[in-house]
């Protein structure tokens, strides 16, 4: 999968979480901050996104320990290459 595809997968997962809470999501793109920015998601939501990415992409970039990431693009990059 290309980084753009992973980014749109992350956007889709985030939007589904917000929709399930009856919230509207603005645009989610590569620059969108995952925690502490515009998105109204919490650690648990972000954890759910990471579990879903691992399941769908068959890759666990955190297997060797935690890696710092802030934006959708930075998270997506961990699954590419």
């Amino acid at each position, binding site marked *: 999968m290309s980084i753009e595809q992973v980014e749109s997968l992350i956007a889709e997962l985030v939007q589904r979480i917000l929709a*399930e809470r009856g919230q509207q999501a603005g645009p989610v793109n590569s620059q969108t901050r995952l925690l502490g*920015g515009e998105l109204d998601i919490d*650690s648990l939501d972000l*954890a759910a996104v990471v579990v879903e990415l691992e*399941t769908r992409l068959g890759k666990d970039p955190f297997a060797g320990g935690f890696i710092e990431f*802030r934006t959708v693009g930075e998270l997506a990059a961990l699954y590419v290459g």
Partner: protein
Amino acid sequence: MAAELTIGTAGLLQDGVRLPAAAVQALVAGLAQRLEQGARQRVALISDRADAALVALLACQRAGCDLLLWRQATPPDSPVWRELGVSALLDGELGLVELPLPRRAEAAGLVLLATSGTTGTPKVAMHRLDRLLGRVRSPRDAAAAQHDRVLLTYHPCSFAGLQVLLTALVSGAELLAVSRSTVASLAAAALAHRPTLCSGTPTFWRGFMLALGPQAASVPLRHITLGGEAVDQVTLDRLRQCFPAAGIVHIYASTEAGALYAVRDGRAGFPRAWLDDGIDGVSLRIRDGALQVRSPRAMQAYVAGAGASPIDADGWLSTGDLVEAEGDRVLFRGRVDSVINVGGAKVRPEEIEAALLELPQVADVRAFAARNPITGELVGVELVLAEGLRLDDVRPIIVAHARQRLGGYKVPRVLRQVTALDASATGKKQRGG
């Protein structure tokens, strides 16, 4: 008796509004007066506001009332109040509702806390405030502590939240609190109000560092505490990098056992030598791979009817945490039981399964711990759906039902559709028959 304790006072900064220590004292005096009108009673506080918890704690001590700290919205006519002997309810605005229940002659300024992760009526542990204060240190430099500000990351009515309130009381530090807090709102509060002390779960700290990013450098933390779940070395190392000026301590405590020990060397687990020598008056041993503790700071008992004491005749309490001695260290390896640890909050899979089985769309379900690098574990469910249904079609119904019945961290975040549950893989579905 407990009322004779001098436990100091503290001011608060709640949701951006400052409440000085003198104002807290005035609220305490007012509430204590209302509580003293009549016999001593057992009061339940239902609120997520730290200011209400602090005032209720001090006022109940002064009036000799028991205080039950309660996290679930529960109506006045619920049978739970009679079961727990509660005769008055207090809300976040300090409104008092008297219940038509007999008052207790024996109320004695106890603090009662519900344990997390149980079905039906939570178990309630009774504590004496003097014992709870046993682990709370007076500051070495009282004058410096007056300028400290403590960021509260826990629910103020949880055991960990109470420890933070007591720390603020003993040290005279200001309490920084946000109602309905999220890691993002806590990060925003930290950037706006610059706390110097903060205690949180490893899950909180990982999310907090993600939310702060490079701005972490402008939060002047000088003391960091981790607790509620086992911490890994990577998280400890990242905290050291993000907050180089801070002392970092990880503690081990539970609602039943009270606060047990603190590890200050920046390494995960605890020193193996503590198995032989004990630590801070606590004895530790490993039995069947699980950590057992014997503590002078354990709770008094569960409230009558809520279950047998988990503490045996010799004073040993099984923590349910699996541990392994490795070199000079004892490291945590998960749980003995099937409890799912969501960022320090314990969830029993049976509770999740029972709630989802209420739906006609769900034929069978198995709850499991979905491991992840942020919260450690999440609630996951494998679902066998009714004939012809697909997960994408019923997902919103399942999530909405779980949100309404379970709420918060108990809502399954990872949903998978399966054609049948694999009972042989873990044998988990044998639980509860």
